[in-house]
């Protein structure tokens, strides 16, 4: 598989501060990629540029050999890139089921109570293990449940490539394992992952390919083991 | 979900029901006109909002009239009773006010509200209830172009004729001293514009050049730029189509620019009691048209001024007089026709008013087929810190001063 998600000379700065600095990165399609780096190294901004939430100052974003730079977020989403948000975001005053149905590619005045889609949604809820909460309003869910709901929502859009921003952020160990297992299964089904994560154990155990960011540019990439022992990485993290 | 929906529709049905019930309660049966209970007169006035000051003036005029009538035994042997509502200077309210007075409280007669803006909508309500509608304030051209059959303006002249005497006087001047250029500034209000443009037409016909012609919205508070235009045009005369405060502001702004015209005329503002103090007593030579003077010798006016002053402590101004006049006109019709209730009686009243002349505190009034009075306003001028009538010649208290001394 060639031509996954890649960026060329991607640059974005706010006021004087350069968040991403001519970052050229290629992620491995069909694999679980990780994007790590110290706080403020531009990981989330990178996500936002890739998914069209912010327009980069210069540089290109390419996906499956198409230039998607500066496209509207919903068009990028429809091109097959799904994402979750740092500090998980769900639609608080909508039911769990509706949270998923939003991701359905359908518009117009036909009723959204569509049997087939509802079944598909229930399928994903069962998969992440919150199907018993179908009718609950999302805001009544616990943090962990919301994390799972957000993941299910992303999956409902059926993307080939999934960007997860700190999936393990603030959830208990049991749940981390559950999410990890889920990622592995989905990857086995042929979905590519790009994960920003601070939990090193998760990264090391889960990922095939790791990219390390520092000051808005990649400073190292490769398999977990190699990256772990890379002096530049240690410097970046520990400031040695 | 279902629970939610059921509750919703329940609430709606309930709300509709209550609204109906409540509104039902709101309705009390109108007064049945047996000859001993009072004649109720419905009025809506702007007691708050933009027109509240003149509105209150008119109110006092009405009250004074009611007192005078009742003290002398009432109308047709029945006491008169005023039912006054506040329309907050708002057209939607003025309409629902008259709707309420005629539809709900079924009053016997109605008097008009204040300001052209409000007269037109309320006149239509009266028209559609077939009521006689005498009003103290709708002086602008537009009022009489709506094809109302029942409307009469209870003052000597419509806005556009207010300056007639001044126009004649100016045009009578020898070419040497007659002003050659004029600047006009009028509030974007049918009445105020009417006065200024009435004069403008006449002067332009006579070849007096218009060098500035400004219109400003009613809410304008900064007159610097308008004044700047007028001042730099060096016009020989300035005419202000003003209500009260805007006139004051414009004059102050002109004085700030040290503009000294040969003639300065403003509607309404200079006749208000506060005027001199408001512009720091620099009033010398300012002209203003007025439909009323306390010193007028008409018999009913002497009584009016005496009783009004007794009742309110201060002598009446133009607004009060207009209110009082309205009362006089309706009273005259009621006396002549001998009835006062809704229905056919109103037709007779309208007929009578159209055909006859009425003696009032502003002199004898009569109307054309559109309800326009057939008179003109007097012209007053500030002389030696006092405002005095200078035109027309036959009623003047002092001589017309021209060119105007510096202010």
């Amino acid at each position, binding site marked *: 598989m060639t031509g996954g998600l890649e960026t060329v000379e991607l640059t974005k700065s*706010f*006021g004087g501060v350069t968040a991403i600095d001519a970052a050229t990165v290629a992620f491995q399609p069909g694999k679980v990629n990780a994007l790590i780096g110290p706080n403020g190294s531009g990981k989330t901004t990178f996500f936002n540029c890739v998914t069209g939430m912010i327009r980069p100052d210069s540089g290109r974003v390419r996906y499956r050999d198409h230039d998607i730079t500066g496209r509207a977020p919903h068009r990028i989403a429809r091109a097959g890139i799904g994402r979750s948000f740092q500090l998980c975001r769900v639609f*608080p005053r909508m039911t769990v089921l509706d949270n998923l149905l939003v991701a359905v590619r359908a518009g117009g005045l036909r009723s959204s109570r569509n049997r087939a889609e509802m079944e598909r949604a229930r399928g994903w809820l069962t998969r992440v293990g919150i199907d018993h909460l179908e009718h609950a309003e999302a805001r009544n869910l616990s943090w962990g449940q919301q994390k799972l709901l957000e993941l299910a929502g992303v999956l409902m859009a059926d993307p080939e490539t999934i960007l997860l921003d700190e999936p393990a952020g603030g959830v208990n160990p049991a749940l981390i394992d559950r999410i990890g297992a889920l990622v592995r299964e989905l990857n086995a089904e042929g979905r590519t992952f790009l994960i920003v994560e601070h939990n090193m154990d998760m990264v090391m155990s889960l990922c095939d390919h790791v990219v390390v960011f520092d000051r808005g540019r990649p400073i190292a990439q490769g398999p977990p083991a190699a990256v772990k022992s890379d002096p530049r990485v240690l410097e970046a993290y520990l400031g040695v | 979900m279902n629970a939610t929906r059921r509750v919703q529709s329940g609430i709606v049905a309930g709300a509709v029901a209550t609204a109906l019930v409540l509104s039902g309660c709101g309705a009390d049966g109108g007064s049945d006109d047996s000859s001993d209970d009072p004649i109720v007169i419905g009025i809506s006035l702007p007691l*708050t*909002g*933009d027109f*509240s*000051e003149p509105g209150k003036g008119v109110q006092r005029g009405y009250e004074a009239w009611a007192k005078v009538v009742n003290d002398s035994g009432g109308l047709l042997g029945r006491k008169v009773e005023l039912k006054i509502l506040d329309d907050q*200077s708002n057209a939607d309210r003025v309409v629902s006010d008259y709707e309420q007075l005629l539809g709900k409280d079924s009053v016997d007669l109605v008097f008009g509200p204040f300001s052209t803006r409000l007269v037109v909508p309320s006149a239509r309500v009266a028209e559609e209830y077939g009521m006689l509608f005498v009003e103290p304030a709708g002086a602008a051209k537009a009022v009489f172009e709506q094809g109302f059959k029942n409307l009469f303006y209870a003052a000597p002249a419509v806005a556009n004729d207010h300056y007639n005497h001044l126009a004649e006087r100016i045009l009578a001047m020898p070419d040497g001293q007659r002003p050659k250029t004029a600047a006009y500034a009028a509030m*974007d209000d049918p009445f105020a514009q009417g006065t200024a443009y009435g004069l403008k037409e006449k002067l332009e016909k006579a070849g007096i050049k218009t060098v500035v012609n*400004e*219109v*400003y*919205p009613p*809410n*304008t*508070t*900064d007159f*610097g*730029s*308008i004044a*700047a*235009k007028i*001042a*730099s045009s060096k016009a020989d005369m300035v005419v202000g189509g003003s209500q*009260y*405060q*805007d006139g*004051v*502001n414009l004059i*102050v*702004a002109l*004085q*700030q*620019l*040290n503009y000294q015209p040969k003639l300065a005329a403003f509607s309404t503002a200079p006749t208000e009691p506060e005027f001199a*103090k*408001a*512009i*720091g007593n*620099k009033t010398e030579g300012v002209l203003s048209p007025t439909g009323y003077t306390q010193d007028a010798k008409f018999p009913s006016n002497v009584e009016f001024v005496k009783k009004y002053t007794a009742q309110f402590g201060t002598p009446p101004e133009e607004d009060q007089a207009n209110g009082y006049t309205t009362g006089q006109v309706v009273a005259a019709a009621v006396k002549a026709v001998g009835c006062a209730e809704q229905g056919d009686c109103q037709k007779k009243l309208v007929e009578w008013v159209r055909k006859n002349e009425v003696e009032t505190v502003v002199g004898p009034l009569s109307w054309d087929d559109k309800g326009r009075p057939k008179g003109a306003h007097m012209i007053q001028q500030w002389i030696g810190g006092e405002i005095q009538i200078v035109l027309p010649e036959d009623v003047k208290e002092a001589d017309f001063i021209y060119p105007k001394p510096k202010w």
Partner: protein
Amino acid sequence: MPSGALLFQSLILGVLLGGLYALLAAGLTLYFGIMRVVMIAHSAFLILAAYLAWYFHERTGLDPLLSLLVTVPLFFGAGVAMQRLLLARLRPMTLTMMSVLLTFSVALAIEGTLGYVFTGTQRRVRLGYSGASLEFFGARIAVVKLIAFLLAAAAMLALYLLMKRSRFGQALRATIQHKDAAQLVGIDTDRIAGYGFGLGLATAAIGGTALALDSTIYPSLHWHWIGPLMAIIVVGGLGSVPGAAIAAMVLGVLQAVLQIPFGTTWAQTVFYLALFATLAIRPQGFFGGRLAQRF
């Protein structure tokens, strides 16, 4: 073709007016910077201050400027209270929208109360020097307008120094630029926000007094002000105080000059045209202000 003298005169009037706009817009944009709040009631407080100045003058006969000694601290307190007791209660998620409604309701309440207490009558402070003016290169400057302008200018300068020089100012700017970061470095952003609000209302107090010197006031006058002010802060870039000041000057002068060919009413539309142009061409505003895009 307007004469040069008239043009010059209008320019001066524009600058004098722009000064007042600048001060008030600064306050309005300050609230937004601090809390992402569009403070509809700003101009209502402006009119309230003007009424207090007028009432003070009517009662005591002293110069209305002295009323500042009362109104400024009073309004500062009111601002802090308003931020703490009302705006702080709103859900962050819907803060911007709901705060608009909340401040709108405050504006209505103020307008209604003023109308109830002082009636709808137009009021104007009567000063001995109302009509006085100075000669300035052939143009004339009304003394009252000049005082109002100087007052506004002084207030702006004070605000500037406060923001740039004082520790409070630093904290305030930090809060405006990046709230979370400010919290991280140990700034109590809530307290700062409260004071910032107080500061905003203080500008309204000063502006109101300046306004009362040379203008008529009536309860519903604030609608006449809020429109231009909001346009100014968008053009200047939401949350940017210098941006607001510049935009205010530019638009103020523009309005005064445009009055020569188009007349007062049409000239007022310049603010809204500028507003729409800004949003269509450059939503983040023309003079700095990165916030606008996101809000």
